[in-house]
């Protein structure tokens, strides 16, 4: 074969961009991988990339094969939410015209969750809270119509984005309060946890006008036993835990928040050993079995509330009984997959490792610890 023929073939190959087929004659053509359809074990690992915070990422990984499927760039100190149907990924983030200087633009980036391609952006006020990525700082409404984004200047407010109309419809002041907890049944409603131990609930109409604004009576004492702002859901209600192991279940469906009587994760012996919840995304529920998983450590004291898990405890959310104690896997975050074969994913923040635990049976069963993913993973979502 002579050089001219090689050149021609190469030009042909290079002209076929977008195709993924290898040419029949053994030559390759450039192209882009199409991901297989998602399974319930698809992981979304949010990585603020602390050593290069300007270049945060969300890694997409198949939990079954551990195959790295791809990544989304999330910019600077982003908060991230998945669409309820997992078709889109929303990233509230900040860009500067010149990396770290020049004009600041805050946007909600919209990514296609299946092609991992950027679909567009919605410019939002330059007040987006540059918080450690966590569920409570950005969430869609139950139906995916709106996106609620926590702001901090440090005055606190919430930007409400209409994802269908692709525009901002409101900015709601939430002084002294933090987090966005969308109502499980009313699209234009969210709640926020407040510094006096109460819950603020705001209801908006489709135009973004505030229809009501209700502050619940305090349901915890932030001085004595602060409640973590992270959460999971159970039967349309929100489940929270406190620094000292109280469980607070909130009904945020109505105009004003309602609370079940709190209950404790601890028995007398646990208290003696100072067991406490600790971590970031420190609790996860499994709906079908009514279980709550919490990352726990003993010898707790002031300042240990972000310590990794020594054990993972499981509770029956209906009986409030502890149903299992598992190794902690050093976890600082938990998530449970949906579908037939539920798995608990325990994120070891320190080592960037994720441990998979089969929770389809009554007793959690260790499956495997995955190889490290990400640099500084802090939030974990599932398909």
């Amino acid at each position, binding site marked *: 074969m002579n050089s001219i023929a090689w050149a021609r073939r190469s030009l042909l190959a290079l002209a076929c961009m977008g195709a993924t087929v290898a040419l029949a004659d053994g030559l390759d053509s450039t192209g882009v991988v199409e991901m297989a359809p998602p399974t319930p074990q698809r992981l979304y690992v949010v990585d*603020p990339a*602390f*050593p*290069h*915070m*300007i270049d945060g990422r969300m890694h997409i990984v198949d939990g079954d094969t551990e195959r790295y499927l791809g990544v989304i760039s999330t910019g*600077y*100190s982003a908060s991230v939410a998945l669409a309820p149907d997992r078709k889109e990924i929303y990233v509230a983030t*900040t860009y*500067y015209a010149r*990396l*770290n*200087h020049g004009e*600041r633009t805050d946007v909600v980036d919209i990514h296609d969750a299946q092609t991992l391609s950027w679909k567009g952006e919605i410019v939002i006020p330059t007040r987006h*809270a*540059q*918080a*450690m990525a*966590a569920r409570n*700082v950005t969430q869609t409404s139950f139906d995916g119509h709106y996106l609620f984004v*926590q702001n*901090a*200047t*440090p*005055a*606190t407010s919430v930007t409400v984005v209409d994802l269908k109309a692709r525009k901002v419809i409101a900015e709601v002041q939430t002084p*002294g*309060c*933090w*987090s966005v907890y969308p109502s499980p049944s009313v699209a234009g409603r969210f709640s*926020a*946890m*407040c*510094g006096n131990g109460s819950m603020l609930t705001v209801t908006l109409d489709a135009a973004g006008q505030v229809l009501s604004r209700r502050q619940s009576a305090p349901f915890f004492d*932030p*001085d004595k036993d*602060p*409640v*973590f*702002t992270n959460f999971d859901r159970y039967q349309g209600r929100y489940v929270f835990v406190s620094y000292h192991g109280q469980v607070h279940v909130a009904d945020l469906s109505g105009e004003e928040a309602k609370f079940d009587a709190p209950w404790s994760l601890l028995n007398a012996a646990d208290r003696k050993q100072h067991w406490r919840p600790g971590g*970031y995304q420190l609790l996860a529920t499994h709906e079908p079995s009514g279980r709550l998983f919490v990352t726990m*450590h*003993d*010898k707790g*004291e*002031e*300042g*240990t*509330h*972000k*310590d*990794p898990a*020594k054990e993972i405890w499981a509770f029956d959310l209906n009986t409030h009984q502890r149903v299992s104690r598992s190794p*902690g896997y050093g976890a*600082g975050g938990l998530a449970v997959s949906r579908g037939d074969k539920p798995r608990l994913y325990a994120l070891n*923040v*320190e080592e960037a490792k994720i441990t998979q635990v089969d929770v389809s049976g009554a007793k959690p069963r260790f499956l495997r610890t995955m190889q490290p993913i990400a*640099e*500084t993973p*802090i939030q974990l979502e599932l398909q």
Partner: protein
Amino acid sequence: MGLIGNWLDRWSERSTRNVAQRSSRRSALNRIGKLMVGSAFVLPVLPFDRTSQAHAAEARKRKQATDDTACDYWRYCAQDGYLCSCCGGTVSTCPPGTEPSKVAWVGTCRNPVDGKDYLISYNDCCGKTSCGRCMCNTSHGERPGYRLGLHNDVNWCMANDSSVFHCTTALIVGLPEGNA
């Protein structure tokens, strides 16, 4: 600035009430911190509190007042960020070309030299991308975002022209009772 005043007031109330339960918090990170001074970028950069459970409680008791490039330096009891002392700044001043944050979170740390509690303001330095050296994350007295002035899981460069976070300083902004 008004907010800072409010936080301080709120903090002071809390400190009065809770003074008995405060303990010297210090994370095992101090060792990691020291390692990283020496070998930043070759060792993994560990951004969060990597406290080994086995040693956390013991580690919390120790702290020192001599090396402010180590995470166990006493002022860093509620630190969260790269130590500016390792980034061209000092414990209280920003590295060249960066700008101190206009707002900050606060903590209370006990100085092992006099055994007294000081109010510490954790001001970020802003305008350059992450320093990446001497990460230190401790959480004594840290509280969720509804107590924003005591919250360290948020970027305190938020109010600067460039909100890009570089490193964190630890300033004494309140003296022990009796020293005022």
